[in-house]
C-alpha cells in the first residue's frame, strides 16, 4: 500500500503551536491548525492516509468521510509543496 513520509530535506519547527516548515523551494508554510502539526508528527514514519485518519479519529470527534477529505486535502498541499514524498 502506498505510504507518505516527510522529506529529509525539510526543516521544521513549532511557533506557538503552529507548524513552520522550510521547504526545498525556500518557501515557508504555516500549519494553521494543530491538526496539521499532528499529521506532520505522524509522518516521521511512512503512513497511509487511512492510518492517519484512524489515529486522528481516536483523538478528535470527527466522522470518517469528513476526516478523510480534510486529511487528503492537507496531504495534497504537502505533496505539491514537495514537503513529503511517497514511500513504497
Amino acid at each position: 500500500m502506498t505510504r507518505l513520509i516527510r522529506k529529509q530535506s525539510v526543516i521544521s519547527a513549532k511557533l506557538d503551536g503552529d507548524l513552520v516548515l522550510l521547504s526545498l523551494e525556500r518557501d515557508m508554510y504555516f500549519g494553521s491548525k494543530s491538526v496539521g502539526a499532528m499529521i506532520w508528527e505522524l509522518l516521521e514514519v511512512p503512513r497511509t492516509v487511512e492510518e492517519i485518519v484512524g489515529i486522528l479519529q481516536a483523538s478528535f470527534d470527527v466522522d470518517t468521510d469528513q476526516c478523510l477529505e480534510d486529511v487528503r486535502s492537507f496531504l495534497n498541499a504537502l505533496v505539491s509543496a514537495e514537503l513529503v514524498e511517497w514511500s513504497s
Partner: protein
Amino acid sequence: MIAAWHYVFAGLRVESDRPLAPMSACEDVAIDRIDLRLRRRSRPWMKAVIKDGPPRHWIKRLDRDRVVLAIEDFGVICASPGLLEWAIRHEADWREFQGYLLGIGLGISLYQLDVIPFHVSGCVVGGGAIAFSGTSGAGKSSMAYALASAFGGEIVSDDMTSFQCAEKGAFMFPGISEVRLFREVVSEFREDRLRARRDERTQKKYRMIGARRALRPVEVRALVWIELERGSDFGIRRVVAGERLRRWRDSLYAADFGVHLGRPARVQTEVLALASKVPVYVMTKGLRVTSVRSDCEQLLGTIERDLASK
C-alpha cells in the same frame, strides 16, 4: 579508468575529473558513495552551444531534472540529479569558469539532490561556527573572512552551504572556502593582499586564495542576519527566534495551510534559529564599507559575553 578527485561540499561527496582548488578534499579513504559527479564533456550539442549560442527553445530545458546553462563567453553547464557536466570555451579562463561551476552549478545540484542550499558565509572561531546571512552585498563574506583572519579561525563556507538540525543545535557543512571580497575590504587585510586575485567575472570582487578551511561539519554558535541601513552605524542585538515570523504570520490571512512568504534568506535564518535553538542576532551597518575588523571585534565581543552569561 579516469582520474578522479574527491571533495566534500555541503554534506555531499563530490567526485570530479578535474581538480577544483576552492573545494575541500574528502578525507575518507574509502569512497563508497558518491552523491555528485562533475564531468568535463564535449558532446556535439555542447560544442554547438559554445559555437553558436543557445537556441531560443532552450527555456524548455529548465526543469528540475535537467537544467542547462549557457554562459556567454565561458561555456556550458548541464545539471542532472547527481551529475554536473560542463564544457568550456577554448579561450575562456578556467578559474573564472570554475566560479560559475561551483556557484550556480552546485546550487542547482543541491536542489536536485533534495538539499536546501542556504545563502550564508561562515567561519569557525572559538570552537564553533558563526554563520552570516543577508542580501547580496550585505557583507557576509567580509565578516566571515575578517573574523577568521582576526581571531585565527577557519572559513567553513563562502556564499552557500547546507545545515543539519540536531536536537539542540545545528551543524554547518563545509562548502567553498575561497572567499570573494570587495576591493575596499581586501585593502584592510594588508598581510593577506598577496593572496587576493581579481575576479574577472564580476570585475568588482577579489578572490582570497588559500584561506584556512574547516573540513568537517561545525556546530553553529550563532546566526547573524546582516541588515544594511543607509546612514546607520554598526549595531548588534540578539533577537528572539521566530519574532519576525510571528509578525509576518499575524499580518497574513493564514486560515489554510500553505502560506508563502517572501524574503527567503531572512525566512531561512528565522526558521533555522527556531528549529535549532541557536541564538540569532541582527547586525546593522551602513552602506559604506568602514572597518570590518572593528565590526568583527564588537560582534564577537557581544556574542561571547552573551554566551558566557548563560
